[in-house]
């Protein structure tokens, strides 16, 4: 059965934000944002708290008025449309279920307000979709967090919005439930085919569910792309640090030859592919993900053509599937290495080692940026 029978999807078109800006006094929460979210996509706005992602969402829902800019749904401009007239619904962070109504009436709420006479079939079908049909007569406070979350989703979805907004929908759930709900949400989105715009500070959540992620920082979009694109080829140090971990090595470009950039860092020539370098002259930052870096007992063991640095192991943590090393270079900088547990001998702290990686796995960033950007924010966001 196609779920379009349930929802009879409206062809609404893309959600477009043009020059969207929101200022609170002197503070600019959202700064001249241009963004197109294709219809039917699962789009995530990812960023630390205070980056403007929730404000963006609230402007789309109409709960916040933009200071400047426009919002379009398909061809229709909705910038000044009252929230209750927008074909957009929100799943609120703390669900905001109506405590005086039972689950059935909570889900039926939107349809009733729009004057639907018979709501029972739709509500029952919706409760079936979130697998909670047996709880229809309960009050919200008799439900667990995960169940409330699903009811909040059903309450919004039943209205067949052109765009469904999810504001940190899984933030209040424990880790295990969150994983389960991530899969559930993705399943439902695929089934109903609506545009989902999902706001989160949890990079793993964004990567699990979204087709496209926009990483936001200080009211602007740092980078937009598929999860793999963002992870493999970050465009700024903020994205490199915020999305997973990165080893960032500052250096200076020595030359570009045949699609290969050579960077001098730590007294060695390190190479990367030109098409993965955001800057090809002057100061650059060479980045490589810890799981792409391998470790060897001495430089002699490093295969030719690999980038190589030497240092001393300062920390080893064996965590079963992998071993995480922290290797201190002569300059004092630390390189982190995740080595899969393939049975190789474990290097102990104090060992002199060589770390190496395939040049095609590195990426290059503009060297004028703050190398720490996004690294500390992650903790704050997770709190």
């Amino acid at each position, binding site marked *: 059965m196609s779920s379009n029978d349930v929802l009879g999807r409206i062809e609404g078109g893309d959600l477009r934000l043009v020059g969207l800006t929101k200022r609170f006094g002197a503070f600019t929460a959202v700064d001249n944002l241009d963004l197109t979210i294709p219809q039917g996509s699962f789009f995530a706005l990812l960023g630390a708290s205070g980056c403007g992602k929730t404000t963006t969402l609230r402007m789309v*829902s*109409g*709960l916040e008025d933009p200071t400047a800019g426009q919002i379009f749904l398909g061809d229709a401009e909705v910038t000044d449309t*009252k*929230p*209750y*007239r927008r074909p*957009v*619904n*929100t799943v*609120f962070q*703390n669900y*905001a*279920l*109506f*405590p*005086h109504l039972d689950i059935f009436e909570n889900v039926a*709420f*939107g349809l009733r*307000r*729009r004057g639907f006479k018979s709501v029972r079939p739709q509500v029952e079908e919706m409760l079936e979709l979130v697998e909670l049909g047996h709880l229809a007569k309960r009050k919200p406070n008799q439900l667990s967090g995960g169940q409330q979350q699903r009811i909040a989703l059903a*309450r*919004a979805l039943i*209205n067949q919005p052109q765009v469904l907004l999810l504001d940190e929908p899984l933030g209040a759930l424990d880790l295990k439930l969150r994983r389960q709900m991530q899969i559930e949400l993705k399943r439902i989105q695929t089934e109903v085919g609506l545009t989902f715009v999902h706001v989160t500070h949890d990079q793993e959540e964004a990567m699990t569910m979204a087709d496209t992620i926009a990483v936001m920082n200080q009211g602007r979009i740092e980078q937009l792309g598929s999860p793999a694109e963002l992870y493999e080829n970050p465009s700024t140090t903020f994205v490199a640090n915020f999305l997973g971990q990165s080893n960032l090595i500052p250096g200076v470009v020595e030359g570009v030859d045949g699609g290969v950039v050579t960077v001098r860092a730590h007294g060695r020539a390190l190479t990367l592919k030109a098409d993965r370098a955001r800057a090809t002259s002057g100061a650059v930052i060479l980045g490589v993900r810890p799981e792409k870096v391998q470790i060897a007992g001495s430089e002699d063991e490093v295969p030719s053509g690999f980038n190589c640095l030497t240092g001393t192991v300062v920390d080893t943590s064996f965590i079963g599937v992998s071993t995480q090393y922290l290797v201190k270079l002569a300059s004092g900088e630390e390189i982190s290495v995740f080595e899969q547990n393939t049975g190789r001998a474990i290097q102990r702290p104090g060992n002199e080692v060589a770390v190496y990686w395939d040049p095609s796995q590195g990426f290059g960033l503009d060297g004028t940026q703050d190398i720490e950007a996004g690294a500390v924010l992650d903790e704050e966001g997770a709190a």
Partner: protein
Amino acid sequence: MTAVADPTAGATQRKPAPPDHKPRRNLTPWILLLPGLLWLTVFFLLPILTSVSASVQTGNYDDGFKLTWHWANYGHAISDYGTQYWHSGLYSTLTTVLCLALGYPVAYFIAFKGGKWKSLLMALVIVPSFTSFLIRTIAWETILADQGPVVHVLRSAHVLGLTEALGWTTGGHVINTPAAVVCGMVYNFLPFTILPLYTSLEKIDPRLLEAGSDLYCSTFTTWRRITLPLSMPGVVGGTLLTFIPAIGDYINAQLLGNPNTGVVGQKIEDLFLRQTSGYPVGSAISVVMMVGTLVLVMSYIRKAGTEDLL
């Protein structure tokens, strides 16, 4: 070991009980209840019993009263004071409705728009009560005086003609009319309506209102479908706190009314203090009022279904 089985172990665990010590009842809750129970017995239970007993006595202040089970007192109490019952019921109901109509917007505004001024605004609602009830009521004599600005405005706006046609004011006066009585009562009881309303409105999560607006509710529908049902405990609490004292109030009728605005309280006072044999009938009226109010309040609470909201 007894110490393990002892249900009060938690309270006594600092000092291990001697092995032969019998498990004893914890008396603390009872001791804590005692002052309250004593107070209620002396100042609530006993007076009610005295009233009920007095209502079936006969006699006068000179010869004393005897318990003669004279039920005819109730006959008089119910049939001879119809006008006063009507007035008490009418004025208190009107007061309650007007207090709700005036108090709800005030409480709503303070709860949702008060921001950092919330506490100050609520203090402003309550502060007038620091002045004596009597003085504030007498002040209304001045406010509603024939030469005062209020009456002047009402007269030039031709409002008095309308109220006169309805029998609420007479001869171009406001003072010493039913309208003045209700004004005084609304003024005096308004804070009792606002306080519980504010408490229940303030508890409402503003995100629920956002959710309403997200789910196709205009501002009014949001109020009607979400705010109002969630503030029902406050509505019920506020109206009860207004209605119950208002139906027994006679100060406003006495100071701001006229001989034709008599309420039950005035009659009871008159029977108690100024008629030598009025004590039993006065008591009977009191009992009738108590039972009547109780029945009204009970059916009201049942109808409002507040137990479902708590």
